[in-house]
């Protein structure tokens, strides 16, 4: 998946701001001729406060609104990003339980408040696990950074 460096940097900043809680949002872009992120939409973690250190939740209404926003920009919602505070950037069993097909799942490791690792994952068709999706960091590209957390 292609992703502009400045978008990755912005996501890192948002995830550091959310620390020690998990942060999350949507990746907007297109899938053809190749998957590419062109915009990001930061959203509040709507899990109850006590659970936010190891859980995130984006509700159905926010998903619908993100799809409307993507449509307005002539893009699709192509994935989700979220952080793993003081935990590796690999999907957990809970991530697997809630995973949707086709989406890219970008996971950012945040260690002691600093974002220091990122990997992208796609759910396998048999739902038995994830396959890592190579990240192609590009210098130019999408510039829409939509922050709905504040």
């Amino acid at each position: 998946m292609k992703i502009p460096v400045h978008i990755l940097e912005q996501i890192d900043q948002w995830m550091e701001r959310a620390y020690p809680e998990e942060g999350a949002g949507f990746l907007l872009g297109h899938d053809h001729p190749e998957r590419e992120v062109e915009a990001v939409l930061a959203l509040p973690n709507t899990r109850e406060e006590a659970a936010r250190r190891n859980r995130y939740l984006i509700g159905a209404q926010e998903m619908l609104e993100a799809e409307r926003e993507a449509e307005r920009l002539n893009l699709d919602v192509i994935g989700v990003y979220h952080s793993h505070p003081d935990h590796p950037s690999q999907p957990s069993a809970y991530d697997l339980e809630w995973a949707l097909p086709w989406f890219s799942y970008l996971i950012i490791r945040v260690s002691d408040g600093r974002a220091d690792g990122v990997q992208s994952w796609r759910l396998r068709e048999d739902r038995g696990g994830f396959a890592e999706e190579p990240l192609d960091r590009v210098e130019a590209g999408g510039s829409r950074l939509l922050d709905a957390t504040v």
Partner: protein
Amino acid sequence: MAVLRISTPLRPYINGKSEVELQGETVLEVVEDLILQYPALRPHLFSSEGKLRAFVNLFLNDQDVRNLQGMETPVKENDRLVLVPSIAGGSRRDGCFPN
């Protein structure tokens, strides 16, 4: 015949369309017709025990069916259903944090 709108990550399973016309007199029957027509969707909507996965939300004419009669909610001709997932995950199950 009801119209079901489906969220982006599930559209590849309905030939890339965003909406399909389905038969059924209840929400459950409409979802069953969806699975009948597009069987590859089944594992993503239902667990191996046959339960609707926790992330699946269904809205009938903009109302969450959980606030109506759930999957038994009657569906009328020309009703609009929307199937949209909640998005969730997190870093670990164990430890002192709530699951």
